[in-house]
């Protein structure tokens, strides 16, 4: 949910940025990270855990906990909480896990 008005801050949502999440076309704003754009759309589940396939969401938002790892433009294990969205970006849940040899 986007905050529409705030007593201290003002948020400028100028330019729309279009990307896909698990094949579906979605829209965020310039300046969003992957996670902030997905949260604004009500998407909290980012991936699943490798062994027990439990849902994984955001935890730290500073790129240190690995809870938000996703596959972005085919590259696995991207920290979606600190990665800005870009036009045409392909964002996918990485289930069950992202292996580097998928990519190289």
């Amino acid at each position: 949910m986007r905050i529409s008005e705030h007593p201290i801050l003002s948020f400028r949502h100028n330019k729309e940025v279009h990307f896909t999440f698990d094949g579906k076309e979605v829209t965020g704003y310039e300046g969003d990270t992957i996670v902030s754009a997905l949260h604004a759309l009500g998407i909290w589940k980012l991936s699943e855990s490798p062994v027990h396939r439990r849902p994984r969401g955001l935890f730290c938002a500073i790129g240190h906990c690995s809870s938000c790892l996703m596959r972005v433009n085919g590259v696995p294990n991207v920290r979606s909480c600190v990665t800005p969205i870009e036009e045409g970006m392909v964002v996918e849940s990485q289930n069950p896990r992202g292996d580097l040899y998928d990519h190289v």
Partner: protein
Amino acid sequence: MITCDLLVIGGGPAGISAAVAAGKAGLKVLLLEERERLGGQLTKQTHRFFGSVAERAGTRGIAIIKDLETVVAQLENVEVSLSTTALGIYEDGVSTALKSGKMIKIKPKAIVVATGAFEKFLPFENNDLPGVYGAGAVQTLMNIYGVLPARRILMIGSGNIGLIVSYQLVQAGAEVVGVIEASPKIGGYLVHASKIRRLGIPIYPSCTIKKAFGQDRVAGAELVRLDEKWKEIPGSQFTVDCDAICLAVGLNPLIDLLGQSGCQFKYIPELGGQVPIRDESMRTNVPHLYIAGDLSSIEEATAALLEGELAGLSAAKQIRPGQSLEARIEEVKTHLRALRSGPVGEKIRSGLSKLTGEALPTPSPRTNAIDELSRTGIASPANLAGVLPDEKRKKSRAYAVIECYQQIPCDPCVHNCPFGAIKPFSDINDLPIVDFDLCTGCGQCIGRCPGLAIFTVDETRDGDRAKITLPYEFLPKPVREEMVDLLDRSGKCVGQGVVKSVLNTPKQDKTTIVTVEIHRNLVQDVRQIRVVQKS
């Protein structure tokens, strides 16, 4: 290979402060920041800072970072490299970093590492469900990206982060169902606790979380009461409905990068866990390697700014001896000591004494009058009695009520009274004392108090009407002659009043000063207003 005098890793308050201090001393500085903007946690701190006016107390974190960015931009010998992740510190003095997908090598003469800290986790059933967030993550989402991740939030931990983020969640339009705290006492500053209590947010001391409910995301939580030995009380479980659980249970220094450098560490829980060993000038056991900020010990941003400056100056002194930096170095050390000298600095002092092996300084005298307050966040009649003028004075002129009962390092009120009515402090941890012969009840102090703990009362008129003036930082703003709900210290509605004035000048920086006409009997109960939503 890039060469420079000083490499600073981390562009938060400590790193910026180090870069600025070294830059002003003439060093060629390279400042690396992982994100797209400088500032670290400052960029999301919408509250006013505590501490000394000399270190910008009373100013919001988001305003402090704007000033710092300007200072950095003016220093030609300080280069900032954003979106750059430091990768390694090698024994030959070379550091590596990743920028735009390419590795860069840097060979500096000295390094300041200021990588900050990381939110602690807590073991409980289903703690891995989406919707269990670090409190800092929620603060980032709402204050930087303008995204509210949930509507009903449970806060775990009543330290300053838990209390401040709870307040900011309400400002952003969310509901905080409660703040739970395992200790029998509130951990953070009591003025922060009082701020959220008067919004109606309950604080549960001696309480912890057992489990989270939910399938693909948090739908609720089971909590349990603890006894005086921190053991669960059987049968005391209760559940709350919430769609997010915020963990604000402390921070650990981010030591991974520094761990590669040969720097020695020591486990000191008071400072946040594994911390680098360093001397008073912020130098580690590795020559030319300095640290600053939360990486060295978990503290407020004011301490990070000072430690950063100290590290930057110390590095400058080592690289370019012969400059007259000594006076400022001693001044910064003195400020840091003052900041940590009060009762709330006791934990840090104890931790630092373990680090340096110094004897503990004598503890400062404590006031025992805060016991009930420190459990509830609500001032008792005894607390209040100590800060009010006598009956005769109450009738003669308006007056300020400063509900600041806990010794914390903070002094903006003293410096913002145009009449000198708040007695000068001998120590930054002093409690404010109003000289009611000098106080005119003008209310200049209200918007400058970081704890929003100052109110003015005017009960000079005959009859049953009186006026209270209070700070207000929510939407919608009230308008003149509007009827508003009056809330007491626990957030309970105790009546209605008519708004008589709404002050919103640029100097107040978005803290609206509202005067409400209320019944005389309520002047010492009402501490918050609520604008009645027209449906």
